[in-house]
């Protein structure tokens, strides 16, 4: 839609819109940017006037058959030239302050911060839908593109659009034919530009798409390298990667080839057009209607702007770049955050209640696909332990995600202490829930910083205590720099169990009233599992705990076991109650007892 408006509107009108969008994206620095751009335009105008002084100066010096050379007049015009040139330089100097006084850096910084805050606010569902590489490109690449070229390009464009017309107007007073000739260059420029613009925009977007895909593939390649090596499709055999490289090169080459002809036409029209004015001038001189000195001056100034004028299309290409960047930034900022109902409430109690919750992920077709959760209702009193069991993909993890408000349900509501999640600020909600994720994510930082991030004001003793409870002490002390070992450098050296224990320490340190444990002991070896289980025992004493566990024996003592299947609550009760009844739970229990009895020998021998 936006490209359609671009095609039909006049270039200047869309440029004005673009300028406004650019100013908006600079936030607090908009005023400074506006002043700077105005300064650049003014500088170009003054420069045009300065160049106009060359005409009377040369004329005065050369004189004519019936006019004596006038050195004094020439000096006056030279002084005027110097004065105007100085003013132009001063104006430009001031305008460039937007870069050099850090306004641009601060605007970029503010925008990045805003985008970061937006990422935090956006429904998590939306973020996880995109590939990290794309977002990376959007955040980093765009913001810089947005501003880095702005001043340079505006300066160049001012040299094309402001300086020559001002000069032409001034020339009208010297010799109206020269002024008019110069102004006549512009209609073809506008026509040609309007002809090229949609192509430029299209080419730019195609290239961006290709780049985005390549970036995502590169990130994935770097992350999945061990798997790719094991699968023997690394390097040249990484098909997706090679395909996206080839695609980038193809789009680039096509773009270059297609643009070459029009660029040539444009530059020829401009350069030969200017040459034609020189030819006309020569004709007028030969006919005796133009002073040779004025023609000389004409050539001197013409040489100054023939090149910027001929390169105009390259400059506008950069405008497209800025516009494409703005498009993506605005699209990202436009994603609405999950609505926050006013007035905000702070729950006083920590019971959890799901009321008729229905949910499907964005991108799922509500009509065709079964919902992830359907009419899910349950009441979890404060300070109790609830276990969620059920097959993979039954909706257990979704329940915990909804409680953390990674997304809102399409119907029904979720309450903590009687308060709807939507009536809490994100900070309040995040403060209430502590989680041990199934996917352990450790930051490239020291061990102690990774644990402390849960409570930045926690003292060393508190961090140590949490680590002790999570059974981390022994392996942390064996690390090369102990607590100060950076995990990025040694990530590979920590086993899955060790990583998980760090994430448990983090959750313990946070000390939130509601605790979610998603498979907390799955990756642990027997000895640490036992120890971690004791730590979790301590954790659940005074809190509302929701645990997803696969081994049913682990959760046999839960106050409440919820059996989930196909997004529905199919059974609930205590372990012994559920076992006593015919049903899903009993079947699962039996299956697990059988699996327990499975030995590797059977598998290996099954062949024989």
């Amino acid at each position, binding site marked *: 839609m936006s490209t359609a408006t671009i095609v039909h509107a006049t270039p200047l009108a869309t440029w004005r819109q673009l300028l406004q969008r650019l100013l908006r994206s600079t936030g607090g620095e908009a005023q400074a940017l506006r002043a700077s751009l105005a300064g650049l335009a003014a500088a170009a105008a003054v420069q045009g006037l300065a160049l106009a002084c060359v005409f009377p100066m040369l004329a005065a010096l050369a004189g004519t058959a019936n006019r004596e050379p006038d050195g004094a007049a020439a000096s006056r015009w030279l002084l005027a030239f110097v004065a105007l040139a100085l003013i132009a330089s001063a104006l430009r100097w001031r305008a460039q302050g937007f870069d*050099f*006084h*850090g306004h641009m*850096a601060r605007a970029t*910084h503010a925008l990045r911060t805003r985008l*970061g805050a937006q*990422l*935090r606010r956006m429904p998590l569902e939306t973020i996880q839908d995109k590939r990290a*590489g794309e*977002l*990376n490109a959007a955040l*980093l690449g765009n913001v810089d593109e947005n501003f880095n070229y702005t001043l340079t390009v505006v300066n160049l464009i001012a040299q094309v659009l402001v300086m020559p017309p001002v000069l032409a107007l001034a020339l009208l007073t010297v010799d109206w034919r020269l002024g008019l000739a110069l102004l006549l260059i512009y209609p073809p420029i506008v026509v040609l530009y309007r002809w090229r613009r949609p192509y430029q925009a299209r080419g730019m977007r195609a290239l961006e798409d290709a780049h985005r895909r390549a970036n995502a593939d*590169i*990130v994935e390649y*770097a992350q999945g*390298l061990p798997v*790719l*090596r*094991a*699968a023997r*499709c690394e390097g040249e055999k990484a098909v997706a990667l090679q395909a996206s*490289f080839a695609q*980038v090169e193809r789009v*680039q*080459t096509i773009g270059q080839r297609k643009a070459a002809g029009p660029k040539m036409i444009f530059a020829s029209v401009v350069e*030969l057009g200017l040459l034609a004015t020189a*030819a006309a001038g*020569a004709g007028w*001189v*030969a006919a005796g209607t133009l002073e040779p000195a004025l023609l*000389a001056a004409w050539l*001197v100034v013409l*040489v*100054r702007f023939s090149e910027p004028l001929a390169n105009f299309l390259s400059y506008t290409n950069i405008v497209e770049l800025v516009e494409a960047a703005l498009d993506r930034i605005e699209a990202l900022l436009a994603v609405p955050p999950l609505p926050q109902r006013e007035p905000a409430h702070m729950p006083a109690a920590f019971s959890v209640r799901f009321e008729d919750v229905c949910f499907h992920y964005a991108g799922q077709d509500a009509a065709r696909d079964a919902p992830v959760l359907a009419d899910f209702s349950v009441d979890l009193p404060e300070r109790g332990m609830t276990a969620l069991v*059920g097959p*993979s*993909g039954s909706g257990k993890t979704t329940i915990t995600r909804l409680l953390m408000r990674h997304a809102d349900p399409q119907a029904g509501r979720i309450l903590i202490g009687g308060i709807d999640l939507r009536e809490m600020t994100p*900070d309040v909600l995040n403060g209430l829930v502590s989680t041990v994720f199934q996917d352990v*994510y450790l930051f490239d*930082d020291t061990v102690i910083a990774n644990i402390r*991030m849960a409570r930045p004001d926690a003292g060393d003793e508190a961090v140590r205590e949490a680590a002790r409870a999570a059974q981390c002490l022994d*392996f942390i002390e064996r690390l*090369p720099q102990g607590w100060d070992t950076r995990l990025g450098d040694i990530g*590979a050296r*920590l*086993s*899955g169990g060790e990583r998980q224990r760090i994430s448990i320490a983090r959750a313990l340190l946070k000390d939130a009233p509601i605790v979610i444990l998603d498979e907390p002991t799955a*990756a642990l070896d*027997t*000895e640490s599992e036992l120890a971690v289980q004791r730590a979790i025992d301590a954790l659940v004493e005074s809190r509302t705990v929701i645990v997803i566990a696969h081994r049913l*024996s*682990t959760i*046999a003592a839960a106050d409440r076991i919820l059996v989930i299947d196909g997004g529905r609550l199919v059974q609930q009760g205590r372990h012994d109650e559920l076992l006593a009844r015919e049903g899903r739970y009993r079947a*699962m229990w039996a*299956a697990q007892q059988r699996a327990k*009895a499975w*030995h*590797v020998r059977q*598998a*290996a021998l099954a062949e024989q």
Partner: protein
Amino acid sequence: MQPVRRRIQFAMALSALATLCQFVVLGALAWMVRALLTETAPDPWPWLALAALGTVLFLVLRITAFNQSHYAAFRLETILRTRVAEYAARVSMGEVQRLGSGALAKVMQDDVNALHVFVADSTPLFARAAVAPLASLALMFALDWRLALAALGVVLAGLAVLSLAMRDRTEMVRRYNEAREQVSAAVVEFVQAMPVVRTFDTGQSTFGRYQRALDSYLDVLLRWYAGAAFSARFGMAAMSALPTLAVLLAMGGWQFQAGRLDFGTWLAVLLLGAGVAEAMLPLMTLMHLVDKTMLSVRRIQQVLELPVLPQPTAAQERAPADASVRFEHVSFSYGADAAEPALADVSFCAAQGTVTALVGPSGAGKTTVARLIPRFWDVNAGRVLVGGVDVRDMSADTLMRHVAFVFQDTFLFASSIADNIRLGLPETTMDEVVAAATAAQAHEFISALPRGYDTPAGERGVFLSGGQRQRITIARAILQNRPILVLDEATAFADPENEAALVQALSALMRGKTVLMVAHRLATIRDADQILVFERGRLAESGTHEALLAGQGVYERLWAGYERAQHWTLHTKALA
């Protein structure tokens, strides 16, 4: 730049020629005016025709030059990216991990891109920025040495100030790039760890690590700009056409009035001279670009200089004789700074068709053993033999043909589930994929997905549960059908019903294979042909379950703990 050097040189030569054509145009115009001034019956048309011809030639040459340099840059981009990707696959995983996937991705994206920008746009400009001032100064000296000197003076003054601006630029560029790299890493981390960030990083005003990276970047930028604020702007003002033009107008006017200069020559100097400084201005910005590019080149080189795992030549290469795995006095540590070795003098043999279990507390070295077999690292001492051949004596390809892996870290690619299963085996038919998925007990849930096997797996497989992802990787291994199988905690994320499914899947996978498995659930490995018990990097014990229990050693202790854990339950109140 090696692979496209020819093309770049060609582009630069074209660009230099184009510049010379421009001088022809300027000269023709100057002589035209001179003719108009001095001759009684002047004929400007031949001069104009020459100017027009020069202009057309100039445009054609310039556009061709840029086309050539751009094509060269496009090619270079693909070549370099492929080369880095290829190379990263040949160095040890340890090096890759030390480098970090974020840094590797950045080299492949940004650094290669910096090189592209340089080659595409700068090489022709470079030729021009070098040729134009020299040629025009030479011409000016031929025309009038005084004016030439004046123009040169302005240029030199501008250059002097600009070089001040460039003083500490290498250091600044380095710091800038460092800060930028941090921002890039912080963004990747911020996005990927968003659930964790939201739950734990509560400081709303400062979202911690992301914000800190941005702050230090801003700091570097501000300092850079502040340092260059005067000299850069002054240089730019001095190098624009206006100061030179002013000097040439003043001096020329004075000389002309004094009768020491004729108007035609003066005009020629004005046309040629005003552009000298301007032509050099790009040279300054180009220097900047060169610095940035050199840094990128260095970083690309750093990756390309990482030690590769040495590969045998075709003549040296030996093929494994059978499907056995043997460790002979293997010692290994992760980097020189490790407090204690990850493995110390480990020897064992897993005979063809047997099941070997690796057990022990976390960090004991089980996973290290599993990863030395696919040669993610090379041992420090001793050797690892597959089928009687040292893994260092076979090509990576041969090794990978013999060994399949299922790791606890299940990485799925953003392509379709079918493509994830047939990864590395593109010729596989859909029927074979389905058969593998069925054997891995994954067919049922895959079929239930909205687009079945064509469902994209999503970044890091976010919409699949751990158990489901695990079964997809098992299906992958089933399809690969290699004689040796290494399993690293393959059942960690199984849920109750799926544990049974997973167990079935593994049974299908293990059939007839030599299996080495890292396991925490001791019950599963009770019947293994041999159990290797690791403790702190050493092979503490080995034997069958019964023999080890009778030995009253580490295994016996682990087993007792395991039995207890089986009967432990989470609870909020003390069990009554």
